[in-house]
């Protein structure tokens, strides 16, 4: 909203320079973003006006604020009308059909006959130019001037173009066509209100006038409309027809219901002045009593309690009086006021307290901390995120933050059973769904960093899954490591260790086609699935232009956070030394470490720890065989173990393994 400095000064007699005025207005919440030379000896103030203050959408409204700040009086424009024509009721009529009463509770019409359409006087043209509006002709310019002065959108119809010269306020018919004065055409429906004549719609109420009844250079008789349209009705019309205007902008926010007739009179007076003609006697007003005011009470004690310092009741009264709040009652601890009709935002005690805070100045509010101590908690999910993040960073992984929106075909290969959320109004049409896996985004980051030789990445964030019971947002950790999936698993295990997660992770085959070799592996804690790891499939590597397939993993952070046992009880260190025995076997390719591990654990008595040592392929082994080596830590709880005992355990383990895996042999 562009404000004219000169105009504001005329209305208030303010003597501040434009910069000072801007600062003072900003300090009470009317944020002036820019001050500049408007030409014509004027300055403009570019105001960012919040939706709660539609009264600031005009110069008179801002003038009231300036008056309140500077203890000045607003000089409202004087209106003296010479009604020399016949009675208005003999020239036109306004009928509000019952279906229209909710959206148009007040409609004021005046008729001016015999006008001469032409350019406005220079002062009016300059005023419009200073606030960035284009002068058109005297009649249209007047409706604009009054709108920017009093915040009352007005419309002038060419009376002779109105069928039967009368106004009917009704709902549009479904499919009714409407062509706006600005050239747009649209189809209406019965939820929308139109201003009609005896034959057709002549305006979309509160939004746009119609092309069919517009004032032009040949217009002689004018019907001047000033109405109060319901904000929701106008908003609906503007949204449905995708048309908006200075008028709809104001009606949507709520204009002063007490200004309708006065603004009409002001405009009529200016028309007589600029364009001549004779004003019909009297006017039509369908609801002069619309602007009822209701009283609001504020307790001084409540105000002090909310703001945290004491504002003297005398000062509060001065502030209220300056804002035009009329005192109608008081007790020792309260004051009751009637706000002016242009302050529709003042309905509750809290609204009045804000006025006190604003006008007394936010700078006056002290900085105190009187609230009692409160112990904060670190919730398990917060702690798990933090520890996992620090562990991974310490292991050389870089944290990424990627877009929640992804192409539709990215995630299903990594989360085959998850239903994805589609966005109805995506900003980036190539990314219309919410991710159900973090992995593709890390592959994309890998592509971004193609020039890097070896990369380790992770992200912690939510995924989004559509469920019958509603949306699920599983928090996840995803890892990408060029060195391979065993490093991914190592990183996951390090994070589990840092979080003191009890129990060892189990492994079972998974079937997510984004992973190579049959879909990767699932890691379990207890029986709960908590992670998926694997090598990117060749197809995935190709999709993201990667020469080599990186190791990948995705962890359910909720499971991890739930299994974390930081602070669990201590176990005494063993009292007797253990003995290490290494075993190296040659086994067929099909034998997995997990199978071997399970067999060893079943066979080894006195086993206190089992460690994978190496995987070997090549010289000295038959084709189709590989070497697996492991180390057992054997320990008895009650004595030092003898070498012979350890040897016999080892021999037994080897024997059981050879029996379990046909073809296996000691190396």
């Amino acid at each position, binding site marked *: 909203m562009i404000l004219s400095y000169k105009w504001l000064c005329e209305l208030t007699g303010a003597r501040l320079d434009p910069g000072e005025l801007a600062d003072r207005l*900003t*300090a009470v919440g009317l944020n002036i973003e820019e001050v500049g030379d408007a030409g014509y000896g004027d300055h403009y103030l570019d105001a960012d006006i919040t*939706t709660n203050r539609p009264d600031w959408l005009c110069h008179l409204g801002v003038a009231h604020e300036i008056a309140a700040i500077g203890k000045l009086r607003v000089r409202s424009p004087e209106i003296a009308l010479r009604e020399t024509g016949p009675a208005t009721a003999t020239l036109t009529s306004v009928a509000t059909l019952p279906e229209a009463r909710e959206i148009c509770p007040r409609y004021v019409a005046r008729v001016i006959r015999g006008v001469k359409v032409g350019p406005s006087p220079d002062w009016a043209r300059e005023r419009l130019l200073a606030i960035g509006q284009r002068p058109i002709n005297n009649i249209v310019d007047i409706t604009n001037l009054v709108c920017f002065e009093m915040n009352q959108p007005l419309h002038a119809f060419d009376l002779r173009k109105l069928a039967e010269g009368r106004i009917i306020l009704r709902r549009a018919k479904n499919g009714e066509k409407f062509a706006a004065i600005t050239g747009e055409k649209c189809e209406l429906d019965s939820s929308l209100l139109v201003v009609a004549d005896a034959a057709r719609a002549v305006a979309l109420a509160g939004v746009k006038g119609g092309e069919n009844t517009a004032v032009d250079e040949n217009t002689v008789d004018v019907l001047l409309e000033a109405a109060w349209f319901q904000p929701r009705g106008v908003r609906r019309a503007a949204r449905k027809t995708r048309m908006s205007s200075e008028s709809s902008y104001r009606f949507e926010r709520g204009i002063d219901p007490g200004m309708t007739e006065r603004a009409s009179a002001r405009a009529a007076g200016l028309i007589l002045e600029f364009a001549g003609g004779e004003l019909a006697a009297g006017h039509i007003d369908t609801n002069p009593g619309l602007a009822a005011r209701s009283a609001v009470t504020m307790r001084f004690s409540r105000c002090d309690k*909310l703001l945290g310092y004491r504002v003297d009741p005398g000062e509060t009264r001065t502030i209220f009086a300056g804002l035009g709040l009329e005192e109608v009652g008081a007790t020792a601890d309260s004051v009751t006021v009637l706000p002016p009709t242009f302050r529709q935002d003042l309905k509750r005690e809290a609204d009045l307290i804000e006025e006190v805070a604003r006008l007394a100045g*936010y700078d006056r509010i002290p900085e105190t901390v009187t*609230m009692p101590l409160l112990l904060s908690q670190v919730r398990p999910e917060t702690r798990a995120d933090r520890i996992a993040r620090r562990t991974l960073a*310490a292991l050389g992984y870089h944290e990424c*933050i990627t877009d929640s929106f992804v192409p539709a075909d990215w995630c299903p290969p990594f989360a085959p059973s998850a239903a994805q959320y589609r966005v109805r109004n995506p900003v980036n049409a190539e990314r219309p769904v919410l991710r159900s896996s973090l992995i593709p985004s890390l592959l994309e*980051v890998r592509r971004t960093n193609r020039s890097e030789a070896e990369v380790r990445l992770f992200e912690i964030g939510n995924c989004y899954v559509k469920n019958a019971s509603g949306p699920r947002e599983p928090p996840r950790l995803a890892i990408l490591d060029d060195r391979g999936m065993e490093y991914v698993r190592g990183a996951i295990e390090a994070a589990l260790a840092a979080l003191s997660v009890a129990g060892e992770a189990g492994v079972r085959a998974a079937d997510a086609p984004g992973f190579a070799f049959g879909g990767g592996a699932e890691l379990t804690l207890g029986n709960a699935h908590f992670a998926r790891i694997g090598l990117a499939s060749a197809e995935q590597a190709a999709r993201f232009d990667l020469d080599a397939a990186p190791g990948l993993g995705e962890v359910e952070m909720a499971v991890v956070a739930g299994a974390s046992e930081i602070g669990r009880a201590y176990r005494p260190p063993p009292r007797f030394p253990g003995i290490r025995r290494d075993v190296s076997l040659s086994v067929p390719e099909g034998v997995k470490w997990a199978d071997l591990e399970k067999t060893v654990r079943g066979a080894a008595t006195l086993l206190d720890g089992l460690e994978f040592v190496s995987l070997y392929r090549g010289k000295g082994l038959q084709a189709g065989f590989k070497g697996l080596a492991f180390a057992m830590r054997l320990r008895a709880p009650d004595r030092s173990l003898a070498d012979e005992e350890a040897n016999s355990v080892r021999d037994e383990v080897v024997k059981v393994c050879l029996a379990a895996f046909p073809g296996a042999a000691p190396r």
Partner: protein
Amino acid sequence: MPLLDEVEALRKEAEKAILAAAAREDLESARVEFLGRSGKLKDLMGRIREVPPELKKAAGQRLNAVKSGLESLFADRKRALSAGESAARPQPDPTLPGRTQPLGTIHPLTQALERFAGVFERLGFTVRQGPEIEDAFHNFDALNMPDDHPVRDQADTFVLEDDAILRSQTSTVQIRVMEEHVKRYGGGAEMPPIRIVAPGRTYRPDAVDATHHYSFSQIEGLAVDRGVTMADLKGFLGMFARETFGPEVKTRFRPSFFPFTEPSAEMDVSCVFCGGKGCRVCKRQGWVELGGCGMVDPNVFDAVGIDSELFTGFAFGFGIERVAMFMLGVDDIRRFTENDLRFLRQF
């Protein structure tokens, strides 16, 4: 030749041999020749008998002096030789660069979030999360943003298939936490205080440019208790600002409007780069906008069932990207989601 002359000649000869020794072996053979158990000096000492008795004492002293002189010369030479030798041997060089595993990094936005959340945690605020996929009640209605009101224009949202929406602000977590609290304790006299911060992602369908993105992060704060005042709000946020931006930083609160707070304020901090004098970073304003705050609107308390006569509260919300860009001098918001390692490694 008298004995003393012979001693003098031997001394010169021995000195010459010791100083000429270029290696440890040469020096050792010189020692054996002159100072050894059957060396030349020992010979001369044996001949002290030949000296007339009245001169014996002086001759003995002279011999001893030459011996100790040669011994110390020998020791010096030995030190010098071994120093020279060890300079050629392999030895540690502590000026070499250290060796370690390369560290990874925590994303600058996470760092900023953790830093902000950390200050509030020390002030008794618990970090809480809330869903990003929301309904209109939590994103709008309960936050005093009625349907069909222009206030919703500023908070256009992404709409999902089943009329769910993506939250357009983390204020939704305020509502979630208060609802949970009321469910557990009731919203009346028995209700314990609430003090939370909620960091998280938010979404608005804005076009992407250097300073806007359709997905961004906010940190939301909420304190509800008996007798929470706007002075407390200024006190807490003032402490936060000084802890985050330095003890010299000044704060400014301007009246503003948010549907869920009243009174509402925009909080500015003095520019940390120019100290408030005005520079390129703060666009010559001297102030940088940090975010919005205010006293919880009674309608919000009504929506969740907290007695607004008994309880008051304050709330605040900051955009993380904006503040991080300001603090780190990042010129384009897209850098944060690009994840170029040359960018990430700097943090």
